[in-house]
């Protein structure tokens, strides 16, 4: 069953007075199955961020629908959407988005607190997760005291603590060095193996090569898709690189 369905989503930004309009997404149509790991790739300005914002219900599409578990939440009110968001989605951002005045532990607990959970059950949820992500020793530290990789793992823990339907990741390796990035991608793969649906937006060919399926977006449309099938990661990486090259050539031709 598709956990996420994106049906002909279109997004047009109007400038003030409505004279000019910019089409960020023309017609995006795809779906994500439960337990799938999908990467979305594209140049800057291809509409990736807009798409992610719409998927995250932070923005509303001009036309089309986004269904999570068959439910359309673009029709909901702001407050309900926020609640929907925290119940169904987990986020990882390029710049971590940790609150600098909370400890690592409290950052991870944040979604649970927002959900109004009892504080006694929180610790039971945090403990296995931080152990798995290897940040168990750091939980009483503040974000500025730990490395970038550790911050991102904190963000992963925060995203997963509510057991979301979908984990949305926006350039998760963007601010990390290659070692920390590889580390993080291994962890995401492990998380995926345990059954988590992941949707990741990225620039990085290497990061995308961990996914089951890579979608390429150009000029607001899904331009190309690659399925892993039984390929090894290195073979997948080659395929992605080829596709990126084609994508770039296409970009040049169209100029």
């Amino acid at each position, binding site marked *: 069953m598709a956990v996420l369905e994106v049906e002909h989503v279109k997004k047009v930004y109007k400038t003030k007075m409505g004279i000019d309009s910019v089409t960020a997404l023309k017609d995006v149509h795809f779906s994500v199955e439960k337990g799938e790991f999908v990467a979305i790739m594209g140049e800057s300005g291809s509409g990736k961020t807009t798409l992610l914002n719409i998927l995250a219900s932070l923005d509303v599409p001009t036309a089309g629908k986004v269904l999570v578990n068959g439910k359309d939440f673009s029709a909901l009110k702001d407050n*309900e959407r*926020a609640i929907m968001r925290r119940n169904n989605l987990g986020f990882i951002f390029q710049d971590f988005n940790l609150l*600098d005045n909370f400890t690592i532990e409290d950052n991870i607990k944040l979604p649970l607190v*927002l959900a109004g959970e009892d504080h006694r059950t929180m610790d039971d949820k945090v403990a296995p997760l931080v152990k798995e992500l290897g940040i168990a020793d750091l939980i009483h530290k503040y974000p500025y005291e730990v490395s970038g990789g550790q911050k991102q793992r904190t963000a992963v823990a925060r995203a997963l603590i509510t057991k979301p339907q979908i984990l949305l990741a926006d350039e998760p390796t963007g601010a990390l060095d290659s070692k920390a990035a590889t580390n993080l991608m291994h962890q995401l793969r492990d998380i995926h193996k345990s059954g988590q649906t992941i949707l990741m937006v990225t620039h990085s060919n290497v990061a995308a090569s961990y996914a089951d399926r890579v979608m390429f977006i150009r000029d607001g449309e899904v331009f190309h898709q690659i399925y892993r099938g039984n390929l090894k990661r290195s073979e997948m990486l080659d395929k992605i690189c080829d596709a990126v090259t084609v994508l770039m050539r296409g970009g040049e031709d169209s100029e």
Partner: protein
Amino acid sequence: MNNNLLSKLAFTGLKNNKKAVLPYVLVSAITVMVFHILQSLIDSKFLVNNGKTAFYGADYIVLFMGIGSIAVGIFSVIFILYGNQFVMKGRKKEIGLYGVLGLSKKDVSFVLFIENLIMSASAIVGGILAGTFLNKLMVLLLYRIIRQPMVKGMDFSLRATILTAVFFSIIYAVCFIYNVLTVRLGNPITILKSENIGEKEPKVKYPLLIIGVLAIACGYFLAVIADNTMVALNSLFIAIIFVTLGTYALFIAGTIFVLKMLKKNKNYYYKTKHFISISNLMFRMKHNAAGLASICILSTAVILLLVCSTSLMMLGEQNIDSMFPKDVMVRGVVNENCSLSDADNAVDEVLKTVGITAQDRSSVSFYMDVCDVEDDGLSVHPNDSFDFTKLRSIYIVTAEQYELYTGKQASLAPGEIYRYSSADDVKDGDKIKIFGNEYSVKKSIDESGLEEFFDSSMRLFGKEVMVVADNNEKSAMLADCNSEELGEDLFYIGFNAKDDISDEQLQTVRDTLSGKLGTVMCRYKEEERSSFYSLYGGTFFVGIFLAALFLIATVMIIFYKQMSEGMEDKKRFEILSNAGLSDKEARGVIKSQVMLMFFLPVCTAIIHIIFASNILRLFMAAILIVDTFTFNMAVAIVSLVFLGVYALVYRITSKQYYNIVYGEKKNNESIKENRESFVGNNSYNQCGAGNRA
């Protein structure tokens, strides 16, 4: 570099920062206006015209205006420097960018110069214009407060205008120099980079916490235990210092302590509202505790000032009536050349000649002295003693005079007295030692009918009235006193005048009486009333001005605090929103947080005032008779009004804060603004490049 372009840059710079610039200019203009009004009133022909005072006591008012304007001047220096610093803080990034884009420091200084010139010119010109037009209104207000008939005509003081312009220009020049120095000393990259570096959670400073608790406790204790004016005079300033110290210490250490305690309580802490607020507040308090404490102290000062001025005005009539039970009161010394009957005759005679009809005439002679109160009675107050805490004024009157004066029967044997005491509880049959001799109190008498005895300049101290059998008894009572002591036999004659007494009549009465009777004090109620209102009306007027100015300063500090905190919290709430904090919840959190930051200082201020009201009342009693009820009413009214105004400010500024932090509707606007400044910078870049080529 093209100056035209630089000026344009200055204009856009101001426009883009209008939220910070406008309040600054407005507050500065108000300060200029207040200063100008006070200064012009000094020159006003409605107060002093060609060296002649327009009414009795106008010279006091001129003096108060002078003192007031000095105070305003000092505060305006502080406000303007603070406001300037805030405005500059917001502009640092932009200025850093100018540097990166290739503007020389000279060019940046030029831009700053243009900006400062615009801001200062609009504040000074605006303030002086407003001051000139409001001047007349202020004269009318002042005349109303001091109960003078209205006057016609405008007046304008060139001296005040020049003084104001020069004074504020100097302040702005200092600001400009400060701004240029910050630009010159910093390099573009450091100015540009204003990213927050992570910081440690604040620790509770236990020594400070203990000092704070002790200081507040001491201050409050001193304020509460004060039971007479002398104690109040001695301990008020110590109490103020203690409380100020304690306020700062408690705001800095106490708030963190409470928040830490709350955080330890997991049941409380892990709730949406508390979770976010406590952590935010903890860091915010770390930076703002001293600022909030200052707001608290400023608010306390405003309320204090207003309470004093208001109660002065509210108690005015009551005071005049109690100080002057009769329209005209004549006091003088009884000696071998002048007996009470001599004085009576002289008064009758002069009244007849000048044509004043006296009513309710009364006259009495008594002995007046000061004494110290001891455990077993009253003793002589040593001349070289400056310990006034036990001091009381004592009036000794013979039974004969007492009967004549009050119309009440008195029959006393030697060794017996009637006693009235304003401080002690007197019971019939008490034994009391007076100047070494023991007396038994035959009867306790009350104050009624005795008021006219009392010398209003001795109001500060307790009063004792002793009625003795006759003159021999009186001499016996005073036998053991030393000759060097202060006491004298005095006469008092008081009456109400049927018609108003003119200045000339009064002068004649005064001259005649002093010619016949030696040194005589002759006071006329209407004259005293006028001088009372001039004196206290003047203080009230200046007090209101100062209070208004403090309030404006408080508002400005709060507004700027809200704005800078809004910027800091913006990112935080974005993250929270991503994590699923709904708009409604965010509103709730923001509201409770802002409310706390806002009302903590003012509530503390009001608590201070409540504790201070006792000592303050006693302190005020040094200059006038203070009725507890009226005074407490004044405290309540002023506190409520202040709270109301403060709440209004809260509503306005919290809206601003909310717009900055969470204004989705405002987002478009800010995008537009960014784009504008971006375009501005671009044109800059090109011109910089052109210049280099």
